[in-house]
């Protein structure tokens, strides 16, 4: 307890320009409660910013604001120094933002829909000529995903939930990451997965970071955060209550902050 788990993942630290910046983000929900309270941080290219915190302290709302799903907020979101606060989801994605939502089957992937259709959610307009959708291109695209991310999907026309949890997550992440996005928001990416799948997902995240992406990693799993992040912030009741470099972070201090205890 209190040990900082280092791993060779963090040794390469090629940080660059600021890719994602949020300034003074505040969000009030229906009952006049602030679900996000004056949040500001930035992530540089080649950096993983871990967001620790117990579920329900603003993580989902933060992700939604950054990705454009939630538009009624105060503050600004900047991607590559461009203010995208008023822009919709599609435009932010076109600006090289990828979002891996914590609700795998339900948000990231559409239930009741085939594997093939789900694989094209991010870039289907690339497989289309005007109103026409080329299935051939979709299949080719999916095969690229399968090869690159080692996804086990025997029947691409089958419904998405026939895939195992790990494969669904690999499909989701592969779909979002294959275009080498500059900004990645990943929420609870390894929840409910088995050991080998977790390992594979971690490798994915690291390799993206090494390619220069700025990663916002939201997770309840402290081990995961410590293993992958360069910096960690803690969300408590919608506020950033702690911000530390990984080298100076301990599980204790993070844990206390998550519980809202000020040292």
């Amino acid at each position: 307890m209190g040990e900082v788990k280092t791993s060779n993942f963090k040794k390469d630290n090629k940080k660059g320009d600021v890719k994602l910046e949020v300034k003074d983000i505040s969000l009030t929900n229906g009952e006049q409660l602030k679900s996000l309270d004056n949040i500001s941080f930035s992530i540089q290219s080649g950096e993983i910013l871990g967001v620790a915190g117990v579920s329900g302290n603003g993580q989902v709302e933060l992700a939604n604001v950054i990705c454009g799903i939630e538009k009624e907020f105060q503050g600004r979101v900047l991607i590559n120094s461009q203010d995208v606060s008023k822009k919709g989801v599609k435009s932010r994605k076109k600006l090289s933002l990828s979002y891996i939502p914590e609700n795998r089957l339900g948000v990231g992937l559409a239930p009741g829909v085939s594997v093939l259709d789900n694989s094209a959610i991010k870039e289907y307009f690339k497989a289309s000529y005007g109103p026409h959708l080329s299935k051939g291109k979709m299949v080719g695209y999916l095969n690229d995903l399968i090869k690159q991310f080692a996804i086990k999907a025997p029947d691409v026309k089958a419904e998405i939930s026939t895939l195992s949890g790990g494969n669904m997550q690999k499909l989701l992440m592969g779909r979002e990451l294959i275009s080498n996005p500059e900004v990645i928001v990943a929420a609870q990416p390894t929840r409910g997965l088995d050991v080998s799948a977790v390992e594979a997902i971690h490798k994915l995240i690291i390799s993206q970071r090494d390619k220069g992406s700025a990663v916002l990693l939201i997770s309840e799993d402290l081990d995961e955060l410590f293993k992958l992040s360069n910096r960690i912030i803690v969300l408590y009741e919608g506020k950033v209550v702690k911000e530390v470099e990984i080298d100076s972070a301990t599980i204790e201090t993070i844990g206390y902050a998550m519980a809202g205890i000020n040292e």
Partner: protein
Amino acid sequence: MNKYILSKKLYRNELATFYSFLIGFLIAIAVGSLILFIQEKNPFDVFSLMLKLSIGSVNSLSNSLNKAIPLILAGLGISIINSVKLWNIGAEGQIFMGAIALNFVYINTSINNSQIYILLLLVSGFLGGAFCILFPAITKVLFGVNEIITTLLTNYIVFGLTIYLINGAWKDPASLNFPAAAYVSESVYLPTVLGKLSSGFLICILFTLIAYYIKDKSVFGYEMRIAGGSELTAIYAGISAKQKAFFAMLIGGGFAGLAGAIELLSQTHRVSTGISQGFGYTAIIVAAITGMRPIGIFLVGCLFGALTIGGSVIQTIGVSSYIAEIIQATTLFGALVAQFFFSYEILKKDEND
């Protein structure tokens, strides 16, 4: 310790829907035979007579295919709307509204060129159907009002409107005991091809291909599928589920309205209660049996058209025409039951898994 778990099959047989349909049809024939036995009629005789008088001659085949037109068109509309996982129970009303819209335009306009006039009238029918579903569409998309009930109740309203019109403003004085609107002029009758087959059937083929394209090959169809899967995913993907749902409903309603227009211009030649005899409801069955596949809807629609014709002619030997309806409904029913066995399997699960 072994557990038995019911789980969804990983690989669903591609032809599962088709096999289910066949099984369902066989079950339906069996049930129909049973009913006939009870009524002391020989099923074999009855069915062969039905066959003979529905597809046994060019004449009867034409009748059957003509009967299939509204089933197919309305069924296609229902399948398009189902892409966003919504149900159109209002096809029956939309068919009537299509006829009403056509008549309205007909009464208030006059165009010399027959072909253009017919085209205009058909378009009016399509728009009439879309108009009919407009209220359910808006309330569903804006407020989430249950579209099953709104489309359904609209049927009764439109039917009432039809009765009102043919007994009032549009009443044909010549139609004494069986009130109906005045006949439209022969110049706008839909021409027939190959004898008695209405050219409406050709329109049917065209629209089947259109529906197939929309659902299977277009970007719009893809976006509808995603929206139908989960509205959250659609938002996440930047697709406006509400927009897709709205247009899907309007288009679907239009298909049904077109069916009504074709019925008027090719069969009844006027607005009357005979524009539709439950086609809108049977179309739901047709669409559901085929798993909402346009090509399948076309084929099953033709089959059901034949069944309906067969059903009406066997009244001459004292068998109720409802036999046909019962067979149709039971087919879907049997198919539902059969689909269970294609979709699920019993797996042994080890306790220590």
